[in-house]
């Protein structure tokens, strides 16, 4: 009896499976024919995780690109053609990023891709973009040490976020002792290496630097927070520089708050905590902790106010926040449109050559420029967390900071530059006058 009934179930399941497969096939066919009919559009690939761990951050960026395309199409598109977004979901799965990138370029024939968040996903798609010669706009702050011909880095390099933040703490808060706390992967490890070298060059002793790594999604911060407290009671002003990633931040800040460490005692400056992340936290215990970014939603400028209004109207959510990587996509998208219009073509080779030198307004009232090393110029802001989940800007760089592809603080990279205009090279050694080959 039992076995028979399960067999029936299995049979009906497989029938359903066949049905679903047929439906899927038909859908696929429909989308294929749809693609043929829409030959007069320019396709823009969107490669952001919509499921899995990184969906928390990347979904917003997908929406941002859809929003920007919508706005551009209202203005008549580009080169007289409408833009069409092709959205894929790499599901926070790094090898899948490469597969989906290949699919976007070869099957959907996109002219440009906006995507990736984690460095490991970027590294995973690099060979695909090089092999198939397409363009990737990467919108997130990252560890640097890379300059690829096919990639345009619109997020901050370490000298556009980490170093100014440390400078602020050193000068304004008179910090003498440093905790570099991060999640255990490439971005925090490289950033902390750069920061450690920078701090030592400023005369900070080894015993005044504590480096701590935790696994992804770490949730029990009791020991580490107690350690930080202990480290901070050596009679010198102490600060925490946090490259703790994503989800682990909430329990970290909660533990800090519960153990009574206030920002005025030991401030924490974070490089991965923005408006979007704060939207899920009770911000009361975080008051006064810092974040360093190139954009804050609270910055008053006509461009920013216009953007926030249009974004909230587009998402039909008057509380929807904006954040730094979104601004990076806004700048990158604008630059790409300008470059395409300049060369009157979406051919990747022509657009790649046209992009350096292109200028686009950023949302904080300045004009960012694409540099020969494929990074851009950006202002740097330090903001304090306010009770409403927004930031109060307490400091900013006097002008725009040019992004360094290669850190000047590290022995291995201080002589390297990326220059895709004059030298046609991503890692040109200025001492030996030689190009070392690939740019990462």
């Amino acid at each position: 009896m039992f076995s028979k009934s399960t067999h029936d179930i299995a049979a009906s399941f497989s029938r359903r499976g066949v049905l679903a497969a047929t439906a899927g096939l038909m859908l696929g066919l429909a989308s294929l024919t749809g693609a043929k009919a829409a030959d007069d559009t320019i396709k823009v690939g969107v490669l952001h995780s919509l499921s899995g761990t990184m969906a928390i951050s990347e979904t917003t960026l997908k929406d941002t690109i859809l929003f920007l395309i919508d706005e551009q199409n209202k203005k008549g598109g580009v080169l007289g053609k409408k833009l069409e977004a092709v959205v894929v979901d790499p599901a926070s799965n790094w090898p899948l990023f490469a597969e989906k990138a290949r699919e976007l370029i070869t099957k959907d024939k996109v002219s440009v891709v906006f995507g990736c968040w984690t460095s490991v996903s970027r590294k995973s798609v690099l060979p695909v973009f090089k092999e198939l010669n397409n363009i990737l706009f990467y919108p997130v702050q990252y560890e640097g040490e890379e300059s690829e011909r096919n990639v345009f880095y619109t997020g901050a390099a370490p000298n556009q976020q980490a170093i100014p933040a440390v400078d602020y703490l050193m000068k304004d808060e008179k910090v003498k002792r440093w905790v570099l706390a991060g999640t255990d992967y490439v971005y925090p490890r490289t950033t902390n290496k750069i920061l450690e070298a920078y701090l030592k060059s400023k005369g900070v002793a080894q015993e005044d630097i504590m480096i701590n790594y935790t696994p992804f999604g770490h949730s029990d911060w009791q020991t580490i927070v107690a350690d930080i407290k202990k480290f901070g009671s050596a009679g010198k002003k102490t600060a925490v520089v946090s490259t703790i990633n994503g989800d682990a931040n909430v329990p970290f800040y909660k533990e800090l708050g519960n153990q009574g460490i206030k920002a005025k005692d030991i401030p924490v400056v974070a490089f991965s905590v923005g408006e979007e992340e704060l939207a899920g936290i009770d911000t009361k215990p975080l008051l006064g902790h810092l974040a360093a970014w190139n954009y804050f939603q609270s910055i008053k400028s006509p461009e920013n106010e216009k953007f926030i209004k249009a974004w909230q109207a587009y998402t039909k959510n008057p509380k929807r926040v904006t954040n730094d990587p979104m601004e990076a996509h806004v700048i990158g998208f604008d630059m790409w449109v300008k470059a395409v219009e300049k060369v009157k073509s979406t051919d990747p080779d022509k657009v790649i050559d046209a992009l350096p030198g292109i200028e686009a307004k950023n949302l904080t009232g300045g004009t960012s420029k694409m540099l020969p090393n494929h990074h851009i110029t950006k202002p740097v802001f330090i903001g304090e967390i306010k009770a409403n989940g927004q930031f109060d800007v307490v400091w900013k760089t006097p002008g725009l900071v040019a992004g360094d592809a290669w850190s000047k603080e590290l022995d291995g990279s201080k002589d390297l530059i990326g220059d895709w205009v004059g030298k046609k090279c991503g890692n040109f050694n200025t001492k030996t006058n030689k190009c070392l080959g690939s740019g990462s």
Partner: protein
Amino acid sequence: MPAHLSARLCSLALSFFLIAFALPALAGPFEDAVAKFANDDYSDTDEAIGVVASSGNPLAFPIISALQDGRLMADPDSKKVYVTGTDGKSIDAVTGQPVATVPDSASAVRLNNRLRRSVDAAIGSLTLQSPDVGTRLQAAQSVFKSHEETALEAVDGALAKETNKSVKAALGDARAAILLFKPDATEVEKLEAVATLKARGDQEALALLTGMGDQPASVTKAAASAIGSIQNSLAIWSMVQNAWYGLSLGSVLLLAAIGLAITFGVMGVINMAHGEMVMIGAYTTFVVQEVIRTRYPGLFDYSLLIAVPLAFVVAGAIGVLIERSIIRFLYGRPLETLLATWGLSLVLQQAVRTMFGPTNREVGNPSWMSGAFELGQITITYNRLWILVFTLAVFAILLAMLRYTALGLEMRAVTQNRRMAASMGIATSRVDALTFGLGSGIAGIAGVALSQIDNVSPNLGQSYIIDSFMVVVFGGVGNLWGTLVGAFTLGIANKFLEPVAGAVLGKIAILVLIILFIQKRPRGLFALKGRAVEA
């Protein structure tokens, strides 16, 4: 005519007021300092705080405390500064006269961390003689923290009048801290200060002693011995602290695993969707808090108590549904169960992601779950303490249920020998469904507690599933006590390893140890014995 007259009177009165206010304020240091608040410059604000606090003006305290709460409004155009009271009424910060409305161009004076420290120090020295004991204690503590030389007179004054024992001790500490850093204090005073701090013996005293800079030789020597003795006692306390952290981590592991100890341990279902039941419990808490926030804000402190039964019912009902629709067809086929429940976990995650969005949802801590208290030299946070208590309570209730209720008896009977139980007239499939529902419901309850210390996001469950399986397997499948001992052992071992090896290596070391242990004892710490094992 009368109307005309009254209008004129009004305008006369108005112009009189205007003149009164337009009169240049008597320029003194206090007035100048207050005007500086309107410059929106952190250095100017810092200077103003110092001058206002030491001015002796009766308005000093209202101004500084308004600054602390963001109620000090400054108009950058007219350079006028207003204090808005907690009742919404405003006064002019220089004259103390009430004003009808604060101009729209005025905005709250901004603070950064450096200024917040100055404000704390200023408030401390201003409230040392407050009638309220709590305020005085806080004041003494903030003076201890800032140990500004200027506060010495105020501390001495307060010490002479103080009658409360703990405030007196705090004032003594503050005085010692000030003297230690006062360049012209005598050697005797400094030696006394070192002795006071040594007696205090906590990390803050240690911080002061290590950071005191150049001192006479005798003081340096006394300080060195004080530092040594404080460090020794702190080292012992840090062992106690590790043990407490271990218990706390163990309680979280136990809470997450206890539901799995039923579904996997007792029933033998490899339930990869267990973590998602925890997540559903956490989201139930979120929904409860949302409703409370919008409709009954007064009930917020009870939100968790309301969420616990609801989470049990929601997660339990989903559990029963899963058992009836999927798992019952897969009994005895562990591999298929694993794949089916794994797929189910992805479906549940994506469903929650679609319904609530991919970003974290805010679950607040009720007041009784926030903050910490000091026990000797260790800090015990309330949320961890309550979670430990809650976990033990859940464990005890579950144990009692299995042992003393009819349902518990049936559950044990069915899991030990299904056919025998069936022939005794027990509806085994109903018991299966209820057992799975019970395990899922308890996972849901765990979600309520975990929402207090972790993110409420669709990924919440994933971070606990591995740990939960580890605990159940390590403790011994099918034995609730094994799960308890397993969870606390792993928690404590982890917390003693973490300071030595770091969080990443510590976790790896624990995994390696468990693998080795399982090689030696495949059935875990407390293996079930007897014929039931083979069934």
